[in-house]
């Protein structure tokens, strides 16, 4: 049923002259020019929205949301040597940041030492290099780990980077149950998008469930996994793909932990999520709301979790690095502000805002300070934090939220047909979906169907770069190699050998690997030595190249 008014408007709209422009979302979603109550006839606000802090959490995970506590302002940072990164952390804490987030360099992310053949030229370049406990000690020097929460973006070797973190806390007399933070530890999205793996999926999933079990007993405040859509989106996916693949990864972890004999009420409350906050303002807000609703429904109805804490999709959001341009980098501040506002209106629990120099280098101090200030303006000046889910009830937003949910469910069915997410990954399904979406977007830019200011429209010819760009000195690699070789000489090498042996032995069986990884960390075994020991048992993963 349409009202006379709606019909009148349709009539007038049909006659209107429209701009020559593409009116679809950034994901290519066709959009109507107007949404009204007629678009929500299947929508039951009691069931679909509920109230904040109650199932299905569409309006937020807490009853008080930002009136109770603002989101954590958490800037992802790491570069060069552990000492340099330690200085950056102190700078950020001094500027009012409320949590730490470690960016590791490529060799560390792949479980390789700084002296590995493939690491040449990459040590400390896009994050901080960590080879042993000694680097972890330098990284967190004079930072009160029992008072600041720490997030670590590490996946394939997450378990042994984490035990280095634990060993450092132990040496400072900090009890494990006082530690708060998050380990990304999401290997499935590595196969799908970020491509930093070591072993095939099965042993990686075992390490993840081992860590969940260990933390439930010993590090209860730690988020053992941050199920991540961010990298899926950065690799070029649509919003619906990001939503669907991330949640499907999450279901896979839940199923794998249940199979390993863990109690869902023990591990589910420590699962957290990480989503992209991209440019398409309403689509992104809808995506975060849909994520909460879908996750809660599956956890409650499919996996039969009883405690409401097990139903929560708690979200860290990061603005979209891939939306930022090397051209006219100052205008990236505006893009980031819009994206961050979408993250906040979407109800995120913590937020990273990218710096304007994202497409050029790691952030300079100036750039990261502006990025943090952007969050502070949203929190304290814009009024966006005063009212919970302020866009709830918008015809457009509720329609989008429901459409995204439906699209995600369609993907879940497709993934189930392929034998679940691991099967789908092995058959290259999510990878191909994303690659196709990335190509289509790039073509739309090339044909100027989609606009990127400063890149394919409003271009400044002969522009000169007018912002400082951070450089990582080549001496970083030398220093790191020197430190590594000193540690190898100084440590008790027979203790290293025997801890690696017992690790391998347990890996061949079924015991929990985390206590053994902790022992390896304590005696200064290197990250690469641990990887190599485990590769002997688990083998290595190889991807068939495709495009």
């Amino acid at each position, binding site marked *: 049923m349409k009202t006379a008014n709606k019909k009148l408007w349709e009539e007038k709209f049909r006659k209107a002259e429209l701009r020559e422009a593409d009116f679809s979302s950034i994901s290519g979603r066709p959009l109507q020019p107007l949404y009204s109550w007629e678009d929500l006839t299947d929508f039951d606000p009691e069931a679909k929205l509920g109230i904040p802090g109650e199932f299905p959490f569409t309006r937020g995970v807490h009853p008080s949301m930002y009136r109770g506590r603002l989101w954590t302002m958490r800037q992802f940072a790491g570069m060069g040597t552990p000492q340099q990164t330690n200085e950056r952390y102190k700078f950020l804490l001094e500027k009012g940041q409320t949590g730490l987030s470690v960016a590791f360099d*490529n*060799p560390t*992310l*792949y479980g*390789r030492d700084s002296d590995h*053949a*493939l*690491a*040449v*030229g*990459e040590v400390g*370049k*896009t994050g901080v290099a960590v080879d042993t406990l000694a680097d972890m000690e330098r990284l967190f020097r004079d930072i009160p780990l029992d008072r600041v929460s720490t997030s670590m973006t590490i996946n394939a070797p997450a378990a042994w980077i984490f035990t280095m973190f634990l060993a450092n806390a132990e040496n400072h007399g900090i009890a494990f149950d006082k530690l708060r933070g998050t380990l990304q530890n999401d290997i499935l999205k*590595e196969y799908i998008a*970020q*491509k*930093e793996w070591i072993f095939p999926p099965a042993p990686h999933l075992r390490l993840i469930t081992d860590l969940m079990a260990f933390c439930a007993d010993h590090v209860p405040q730690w988020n053992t996994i941050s199920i991540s859509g961010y990298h899926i989106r*950065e*690799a*070029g996916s649509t919003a619906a793909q990001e939503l669907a693949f991330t949640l499907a990864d999450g279901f896979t972890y839940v199923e794998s932990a249940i199979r390993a004999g863990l109690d869902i009420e023990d591990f589910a409350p420590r699962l957290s999520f990480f989503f992209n906050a991209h440019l398409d303002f309403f689509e992104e807000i809808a995506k975060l709301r849909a994520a909460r609703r879908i996750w809660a429904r599956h956890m409650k109805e499919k996996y039969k979790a009883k405690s409401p804490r097990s139903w929560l999709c708690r979200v860290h959001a990061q603005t979209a690095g*891939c939306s930022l*341009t*090397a*051209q006219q980098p100052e205008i990236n501040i505006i893009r980031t502000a819009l994206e961050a506002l979408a993250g906040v209106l979407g109800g995120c629990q913590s937020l990273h805002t990218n710096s304007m120099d994202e*497409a*050029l*280098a790691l952030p300079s101090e100036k750039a990261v300070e502006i990025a943090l200030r952007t969050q502070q303006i949203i929190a304290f000046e814009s009024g966006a934090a005063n009212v919970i889910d302020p866009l709830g009830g918008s015809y457009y937003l509720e329609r989008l939220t429901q459409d995204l949910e439906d699209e995600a469910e369609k993907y879940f069915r497709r993934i189930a047909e392929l034998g679940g997410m691991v099967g789908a990954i092995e058959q290259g399904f999510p990878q191909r979906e994303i*690659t196709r979406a*990335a*190509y289509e977007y*790039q*073509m739309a*830019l*090339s044909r100027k169907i989609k606009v*990127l200011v*400063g*890149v*394919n429209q409003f271009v400044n010819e002969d522009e000169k*770069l007018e912002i400082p*760009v951070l*450089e*990582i000195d080549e001496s970083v690699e030398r220093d790191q190699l020197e430190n590594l070789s000193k540690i190898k000489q100084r440590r008790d090498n027979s203790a290293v050998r025997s801890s690696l042996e017992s690790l391998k032995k347990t890996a061949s069986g079924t015991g929990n690997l985390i206590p053994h990884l902790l022992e390896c960390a304590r005696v200064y075994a290197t990250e690469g030595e641990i990887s190599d020991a485990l590769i002997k048992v688990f083998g290595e993963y190889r*991807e*068939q*190249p*495709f*495009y």
Partner: protein
Amino acid sequence: MAGPKIKVVIAKPGLDGHDRGVKVIARALVEAGMEVVYLGLQQTPESIVQAAVEEDADVIGLSILSGAHLTHFKRVKELMDKAGLGDRLLTGGGIIPTKDQPKLKELGVGKVFGPGEDIQNIVEYIRETIQERRRTEHGF
């Protein structure tokens, strides 16, 4: 258009998983009528040049967003010269600061492309460079 298909070997050297751009380029080059051999991730300069020899490639393209561009381009160029591929085009793209571009040019690397580059420009650059080279070599 005269001459055989242009053959391009593309790779990601080192420990850099950012493969969104390289796959878009690979597909765009294929759509433009070139033959593309994409080697994938975690390649070494040795494995890349060996593949280029086996494929008798006209072009080697490297995608590097890891900050290790100077290291990798230099090594690949050295190995190309050694393998008798000194006359082939070495190009690429990624996050490569403007100030490093003269250094790459000095090494004998062709144009390198950054974020926001129109794909058609990359396709045209490769096509024109190879056609120019073929014209010079064959004298027509």
